[in-house]
């Protein structure tokens, strides 16, 4: 009979906390912060439905230092999301071949990130210059 006895090493349960996967785990968790931001908006919607007082309370909270800190954190997470999202973008789309050679993934990332900068800036500009 064969003496073969393959040895299976256990997978460490906390692999995600260690190099080189830490980066990945942080990226994934940045997704959660996006829901937190959406939850802030959702609470505004609830306030709106509940009437002017509730709305003003919500506005008041928005202007509070606590909210500022929270939004500061959300902004950082969002920036991280933008960065990593466009790093992955070229991996999720088919290869772009222009003029016989594949477009470098770095270029696609750059273009994507630039589009994001334009979109967000346009949004801010629109809000700032729209006559309210």
């Amino acid at each position, binding site marked *: 009979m064969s*003496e*073969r*006895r*393959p*040895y*299976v*090493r256990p*997978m460490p349960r906390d*692999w*995600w906390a260690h190099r*080189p*996967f830490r980066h*990945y785990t942080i990226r*994934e968790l940045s997704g959660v912060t996006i829901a937190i931001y959406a939850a802030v908006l959702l609470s505004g919607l609830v306030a709106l439905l509940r009437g002017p007082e509730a709305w003003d309370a919500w506005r008041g909270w928005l202007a509070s230092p606590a909210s500022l800190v929270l939004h500061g954190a959300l902004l950082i997470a969002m920036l991280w999301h933008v960065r990593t999202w466009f790093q*992955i973008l*070229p*991996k*999720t*789309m*088919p*290869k772009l*071949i222009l*003029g*016989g*050679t*594949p477009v470098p*993934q770095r270029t696609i990332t750059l273009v994507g990130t630039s589009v994001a900068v334009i979109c967000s800036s346009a949004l801010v500009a629109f809000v700032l210059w729209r006559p309210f």
Partner: protein
Amino acid sequence: MTERADKTIELRVLRYNPEADEKPHHQSFTVPYTSDMSVLQGLQWIKDTVDGSLTYRWSCRMAICGSCGMMINAEPKLACHTLLRDLAPGPVTVEPLNHFPIERDLVVTVDDFVKKIESVTPWLIPKHPKPVSEGPYNQTPAQLAAYENFSACINCMLCYAACPQYGENPKFIGPAAMAILQRYDGDSRDGGSALRIDAVHGEDGVWGCTAVGACSDVCPKAVDPMHAVNQNKMNTALDYFLRFLKKRDAK
């Protein structure tokens, strides 16, 4: 003619002999080395002069046959393409590729990996079949470039050793098999992608990947398997919704 190897380095090698050991353990060897010696040559020195029972795979020693993948200082590497001088002063840990069962010492089980390759229909299914007498198909350099890197996979399995999702779920099709799938799907001469998608649309197919990206980081041949897996998420997703239309078309 003899080698002047005046420096030494310690290799801590994971040993496992299924006929004697309950589980693997490390063993240290002090290896004299010259500046052009690879980790593989260090292992060969041990096998030739200290302990003939040390077991590992190798052949080409020029980073093309894909035999000698192992964990070197916890990173998946080709032993023949990792120089001892870059690891000095050591010690250097040498272990079998992560996530694969160990057969003996640095030798891991490969069968399952090869079955995965077999499962993606890894051959050309011509879009327009023709006999050899009618000559080669035309393929422009741009069409070639569309799949060329995916065809460069040497089956070294470093990417599987790097991928935690494969470590969690050995049934996951994994990066290299997907690169080989994409090598044919992306080939302008091929018309078999419908068949291949059916092999990988399950939980253990493309959806086993969470875009960790370590596979592409460790690949010694710039195959970019992460790209192959993830672009097929989109293909599979489209197929998910369009399959009903397609079935109707076919009738």
